[in-house]
């Protein structure tokens, strides 16, 4: 019978586990980048509005944005039509202007996913993130 000391046994066990997990799909080992998020994953939702036409952000939209903010990994905000928009929202604002303000835009850090003009209800606004 082969005798193995405790330390050796632990090392061998770690190696076995390492071999198992590197062969299981979707389970990265160590400090790797992890699974790649889908290209159409929505992480940013922005309601763009214009004070001259919309007046203020409608209550149902604020309700929807607050609800969306409870979802992990998603940031939902509102922004008044202004060229002084942060750099990372320029494409989103362009998409909103294209469909016509007010509009709600779903995006991620790489691209705009979709834009919808003038949602009236909380449900319509939430639908942008489906």
């Amino acid at each position, binding site marked *: 019978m082969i005798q193995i000391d405790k330390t050796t046994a632990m090392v061998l066990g770690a190696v076995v586990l390492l071999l198992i997990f590197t062969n299981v799909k979707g389970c990265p080992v160590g400090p790797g980048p992890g699974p790649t998020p889908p290209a159409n994953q929505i992480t940013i939702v922005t*309601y763009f509005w214009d*004070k001259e036409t*919309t*007046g*203020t*952000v409608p*209550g149902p939209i*604020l*309700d929807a*944005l*607050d609800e969306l*903010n409870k979802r992990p990994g998603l*940031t*939902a*905000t*509102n*922004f*008044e039509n*202004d060229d*002084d*928009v*942060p*750099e*990372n929202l320029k494409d989103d604002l362009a998409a909103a202007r294209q469909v016509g303000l007010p509009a709600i835009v779903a995006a991620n850090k790489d691209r705009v996913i979709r834009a919808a003009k003038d949602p009236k209800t909380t449900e319509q606004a939430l639908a942008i993130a489906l």
Partner: protein
Amino acid sequence: MPIDSFAPIDRRLIDVPLPNEHDGYPAHFKAEDTIDVIRDACGDTGREFPASLWIEPKDWPDKARENDVKKRWPLNYVDRFTNQNPTHECTCHALTRLAEGCRNRQRSIKFPDGPKKAFRYEESKRSGSVWLSPLSIYAEANPRQWGGAGCRQVLEIAVRRGFLPEKIQPRDYKFKHDLQGTTGAGGLNQSKGPWPSLSSFPAGWQETGELFKPKEIVYTDNWEQVVCLVLHGYLVEVGRSGHAIPYAIWNPTEEAMGYVDSYDVMRWDSKGTVKGASSGAFAIVSMTTPKDWLNPAGTLPAEALAL
């Protein structure tokens, strides 16, 4: 406790006179803070109350009821109390509530029960709420520290060069420049410290001030417009009876206006007091927007941004 704007109000909390020694908004400042003066203080950021925000008084109760259910009061965008006791910093405590509430409204995060004494919301950390220092404005408005300031004065300073963040924040933003919030009592969510002269502000502080500037102010002509702004979810600063405060909720039953007092407590003004206070009232309806709400100064490394 759910907010009920129709609930009876404890009489002891209505039209509360502060001790004379707490006079941070003396009568001569009140006399100066007219709508014309406020308009000038705002510069390009100011605009008159827009017709689109008008709500007929007969519809105020329905709107209030909706705000109760949906948590749309200005109060629902305020995540902390401050405590100025016994200083004269009231105009700036009120102004920072307006600025913070406006940022939180843009960020679209609600705080279900409004501010609560000695309580910190998890949502404040999650959303990237930033707490702004009243002293960062007051130190310039009144270098003598005692005697208060005018609402026009402090608004003009904030519009011109912005606020500095407080030393206490709901998360570590690694601001390059910050400042104690008050020389008064402070609290769980407000830093306190010695009086800072403007010349003692951290070097280069203007850079951080640029990140927290009002972009748009709406000023009012009458008390009904003040109520309309509050019904739409905007905090409104007013000064009266030696004290400046931010209006945050309207009670249709009592016809009284609740405010987030800078003494860790909610108090109320009667309709008569609201009418007298509304000259020179204003709301901040837009603040500068960060590229990343969790990294408002852009100083955090990527790995620090995970919750």
